[in-house]
């Protein structure tokens, strides 16, 4: 396959022989070829020559008909300065104020400035590309505007005179569109829009969305209209993770992301676009080939399965970078493609099954199905039926080797696809060494979790094959037969290497292509509402997302919400509005981040809804239409404004209301196959604490005030930076802290779980005394505060410290907790030693080491081996409720039979331990 076919295949979810390589090589091609940059930027013939030569040397799959960022500005009348060995720049702006706009004319690409040189380069490259993708280049409207105006003036105009600025942008859009048309006519395979002035380093996301997003979309859509097989490509430098609309909303076929963007983040938001990047450009100038090679291999490892990736640099490769550094990219791509991981050793009688693109090989018995071998080999394939060929989701391509003959069901399902090597993995049996290609739609890609995944238990909580399987939202009915239009254009034309025919990049992405439908369990009881997305057919967990909960959105916390609602009726209306907004946000998030079309989401099952308790409603008032109450197996129905067809069910139906640990306990118990006879205790450590004891079919619940130690970010940090918080911390004997943040980056603050770990370590090593005062002159202590992370190592350049008042809060919490535990055990006449199982739930329960909880005095020493952390019990239960009617009923029964010991926090729980 040639380079263009390779890039088109990646865009079209097809198979490739190796990852495409396309670093942004612009004027560096001149320095590689010994030409002067000043000559390169002025002559289309020199551009073409240098591009082709550099591509041959480096092995790049793309050719860039590009000079610099001033071409359009110059064509509009700006004077440019051309240094010999550097890019040109504009000498002075021609637009000083809005009135100057009138003087500008649309340039003619065939005659004005250096535009004709770009067209010449396109023509020359198109004639002689050697199969490489020829990309013509234009700049985005705001980049153009920042060249014809003084950039500082432009920024002020955006804010002071937005309407006038918008007209300038419209004009620049017109210039770009006309140029793009001419580039396409000259024969380019693709259009690359450089838009450095749209960088989040310069422009806040709101400005990008308001002024630049639509113009870029129109320019790219215009290109597609002219020629549907053209590749559209958008490149913006800088920390694009702070404005993911650049990746997900622009909708280019390929988006280049810069080095500050973590590749995982880019892939999460990629949706329809293929990601290109993102090695630090300066590495090519200052580094060594093996450094580039290693970074490239890391990126390729991360993207092996998703394959929505073209290897390259984060931004253009600097002039004077040595060719050998760039060549390392192609070496890495070649090596990565040929590396096969062997899972087990060969054995007599076993045959070798190799799976692509996973590049994993396993020796299996003959007669095993492809699906089984794939699962064992670490290349899981999607399936939604009971392996009978009914769902036809497991289509794979047998590239070579011997498998059993097509059976009747396969024939019926695959039709003519069978001739192209397509088989159903659940039915086809391996009969000799085989090589199998698993197409994108059949590949189970590990979860792209959004919000802190580590906090949430990702194991599936329902067995779709059990008799208990009773989904609240039935899956969509689909035709069992695959139509040729879906898979055919890719599978039918496969040669031995399985090259996919180009599709023009219009195929929808994974979530839409598979025939999956999804159900969402939402726990909105806390400050954060959490949504868990499950595939209905298999009950498998797919994604988790965290959102601002409605209670927090109206500025309250869960402890005060009941009283406030009673005293202040308008709060109910606000809560309802915020809840509706939350439901809509969840569906939008599924589309934007996971490409799941709203019509694939069958419904939301909501627990912990603050509106679920209508006992506080004045008698006679009916709920407004948005929240109609319908009896439906213990579930009430709400409605969503944006998606009226989508079901939102609140569970349990009012007036049942699960609160705190009674709900968590109910959920845990409901998930057990049979009610556990042994004494079990549930401790929920959240922003308010509660304890429930279960014993002999009876339940007692008790709340205690715990205080909000959940998040302790540096002042000013907003919610969105949860991933930067330290969730696990240990302090050693020297007072040195080791810690982990969710995303591995420099931290911004501490979560309560880290506080527990750190405080336990501090206590163990004498850094704090019994009263919680910070000691230890040898430890890093500043102003009586123990420095957990010094300021140089934090992302916010403020140190993260723990002081007496933090320890004090923790100790109040431990005191309250141990008091509550003893109260509840007294009520059921149990001693702590008699407790057999302890479930600790709630975000605070996710501590690294139960010994820390014991060290600080939350729980007695005798429970050491008996503790199970269930993390988000409420969420777990909600997810269970999606699929099991038995679980739903049991949970309601259990919750209703809870006997509260005390609802109000007593004064004595304010004592320190």
């Amino acid at each position, binding site marked *: 396959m040639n380079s263009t076919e390779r890039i088109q295949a990646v865009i079209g979810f097809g198979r490739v022989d190796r990852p495409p390589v396309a670093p942004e090589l612009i004027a560096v091609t001149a320095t590689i070829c010994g030409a002067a940059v000043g000559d390169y930027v002025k002559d289309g013939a020199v551009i073409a020559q240098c591009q082709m030569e550099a591509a041959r040397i480096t092995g790049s799959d793309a050719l860039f008909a590009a000079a610099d960022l001033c071409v359009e500005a110059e064509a509009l009348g700006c004077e440019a300065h051309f240094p010999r060995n*550097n890019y040109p720049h504009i000498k002075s702006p021609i637009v000083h104020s809005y009135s100057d706009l009138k003087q500008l004319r649309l340039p003619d690409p065939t005659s004005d400035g250096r535009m004709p040189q770009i067209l010449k380069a396109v023509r020359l490259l198109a004639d002689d590309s050697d199969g490489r993708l020829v990309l013509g280049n234009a700049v985005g409207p705001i980049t153009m505007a920042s060249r014809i105006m003084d*950039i500082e003036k432009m920024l002020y105009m955006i804010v002071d005179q937005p309407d006038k600025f918008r007209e300038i942008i419209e004009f620049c859009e017109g210039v770009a569109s006309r140029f793009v048309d001419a580039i396409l006519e000259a024969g380019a395979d693709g259009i690359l829009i450089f838009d450095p002035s749209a960088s989040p380093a310069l422009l806040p996301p709101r400005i990008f969305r308001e002024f630049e997003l639509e113009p870029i979309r129109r320019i790219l859509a215009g290109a597609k209209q002219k020629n549907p097989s053209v590749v559209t490509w958008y490149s913006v*430098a800088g920390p694009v993770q702070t404005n993911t609309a650049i990746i997900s909303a622009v909708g280019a076929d390929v988006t280049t992301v810069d080095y500050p963007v973590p590749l995982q983040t880019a892939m999460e938001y990629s949706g329809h676009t293929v990601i290109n990047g993102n090695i630090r450009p300066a590495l090519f100038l200052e580094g060594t080939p093996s450094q580039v090679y290693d970074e490239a291999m890391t990126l390729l490892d991360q993207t092996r399965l998703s394959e929505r990736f073209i290897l390259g640099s984060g931004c253009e490769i*600097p002039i004077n970078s040595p060719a050998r550094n760039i060549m390392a990219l192609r070496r890495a791509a070649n090596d990565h493609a040929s590396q096969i991981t062997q899972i087990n050793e060969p054995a007599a009688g076993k045959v070798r099954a190799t799976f692509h693109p996973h590049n994993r090989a396993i020796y299996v018995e003959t007669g095993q199905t492809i699906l089984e071998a794939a699962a064992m080999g670490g290349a899981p394939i999607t399936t939604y039926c009971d392996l009978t060929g009914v769902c036809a989701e497991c289509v794979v391509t047998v590239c070579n080797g011997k498998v059993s003959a097509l059976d009747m069901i396969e024939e019926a399902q695959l039709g003519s696809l069978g001739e192209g090597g397509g088989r159903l993995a659940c039915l086809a049996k391996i009969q000799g060494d085989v090589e199998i290609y698993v197409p994108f739609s059949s590949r189970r890609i590990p979860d792209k979790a959004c919000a802190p995944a580590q906090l949430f238990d990702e194991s599936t909580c329902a067995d779709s094959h059990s008799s208990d399987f009773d989904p609240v939202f039935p899956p969509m009915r689909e035709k069992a037969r695959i139509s040729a239009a879906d898979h055919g254009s890719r599978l039918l034309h496969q040669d031995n290497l399985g090259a996919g025919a180009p599709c023009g990049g219009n195929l929808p992405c994974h979530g839409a292509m598979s025939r999956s439908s999804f159900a969402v369990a939402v726990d909105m009881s806390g400050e954060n509402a959490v949504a868990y997305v499950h595939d209905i057919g298999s009950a498998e967990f797919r994604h988790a997302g965290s959102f601002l909960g409605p209670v927090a959105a109206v500025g309250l916390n869960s402890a005060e919400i009941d009283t406030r609602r009673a005293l202040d009726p308008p709060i109910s209306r606000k809560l309802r509005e915020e809840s509706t907004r939350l439901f809509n946000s969840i569906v939008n998030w599924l589309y934007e981040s996971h490409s799941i079309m709203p019509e694939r989401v069958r419904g939301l099952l909501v627990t912990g809804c603050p509106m679920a308790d209508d006992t506080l409603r004045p008698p006679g008032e009916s709920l407004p239409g948005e929240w109609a109450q319908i009896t439906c197996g213990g579930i009430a129905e709400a409605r969503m404004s944006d998606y009226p067809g989508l079901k939102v069910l609140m569970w349990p139906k009012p007036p049942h209301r699960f609160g705190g640990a009674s709900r968590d306990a109910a959920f845990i118990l409901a998930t057990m196959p049979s009610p556990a006879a042994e004494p079990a205790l549930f401790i929920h450590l959240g922003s308010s604490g509660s304890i429930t004891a279960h014993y002999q079919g009876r339940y007692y619940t008790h709340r205690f005030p715990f205080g909000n130690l959940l998040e302790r970010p*540096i002042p*000013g940090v907003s919610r969105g930076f949860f991933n930067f918080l330290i969730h696990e911390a240990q302090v050693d004997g020297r007072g040195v802290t080791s810690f982990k943040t969710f995303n591995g980056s420099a931290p911004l603050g501490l979560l309560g779980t880290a506080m527990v770990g750190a405080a336990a370590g501090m206590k163990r090593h004498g850094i704090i005394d019994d009263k919680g005062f910070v000691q230890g002159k040898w430890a890093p202590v500043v102003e009586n505060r123990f420095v957990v992370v010094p300021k140089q190592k934090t*992302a916010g350049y403020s140190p993260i410290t723990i002081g007496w008042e933090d320890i004090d809060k923790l100790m109040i919490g431990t005191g309250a907790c141990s008091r509550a535990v003893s109260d509840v055990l007294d009520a059921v006449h149990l001693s702590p030693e008699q407790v057999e199982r302890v479930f600790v739930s709630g975000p605070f329960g996710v501590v690294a080491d139960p010994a820390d909880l014991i060290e600080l005095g939350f729980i007695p020493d005798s429970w050491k081996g008996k503790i199970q952390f269930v993390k988000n019990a409420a969420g777990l239960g909600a997810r269970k409720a999606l699929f099991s009617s038995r679980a739903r009923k049991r949970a309601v029964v259990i919750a209703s039979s809870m006997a509260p010991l005390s609802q109000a926090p007593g004064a004595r729980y304010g004592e320190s331990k």
Partner: protein
Amino acid sequence: MDQLKELSLLVQHGENVQAVSCAEKLLAQSCPMEDIVKALSDGLEVLRNKCTIENFQLLDVLLATRAMVEVVDECLARKLQNELDNLATTHEATQSAEPTRTLVIGTIQGDIHDLGKHIVATLCRFKNLRVINLGKDVSVEQFVDTAIAENADFIGVSSLMTVCLSRISEIKNELARRGRNEITVVAGGGAAQQSSPDRLNVDYVAHDAFDGLDYFLSDILPVKS
């Protein structure tokens, strides 16, 4: 709300026109100038925290510094009929006696991007640093000549284009040749941030404007009298 707090908020949000009229009202009520200057300073501090955490938002900082400069130039300077430097002297005199440091700043030769550097210069001036802004496309000789002539503590050099980075390393060499090793060289900007102090042959690479400002004000460096 307290008018000084309001002024601070207006500056944070870049509301230059409203900030100026708020400051005018305060002056009409005989509010001491030091209080107004402190309110501006507080606004910037909040912005600094917001920026380091949420990624440096250049436009927001630009608008805030514009608001701040307009309050100072149109309000306070008008009142005093002095320029910003004189105000800084007054401001300085009302604070504890802090010696002023001098900073020579510019964009390296070959590079014409200077927006970020311009913001740094404004912030430094506001914080009582004496700033000589050489503009863009500044040669190594110009940096060193000016730094020596002005008895500078720092040279701040900015670069967005990687191709210009190699010139930055010549600055310290030239300073050494002239026996002026004590002048500290700080690099910043999109290209410099991809490199390191060792490779660039500088004393520090600043992440963003506030980081550079912190460095220029920090206590660990000796201050020349």
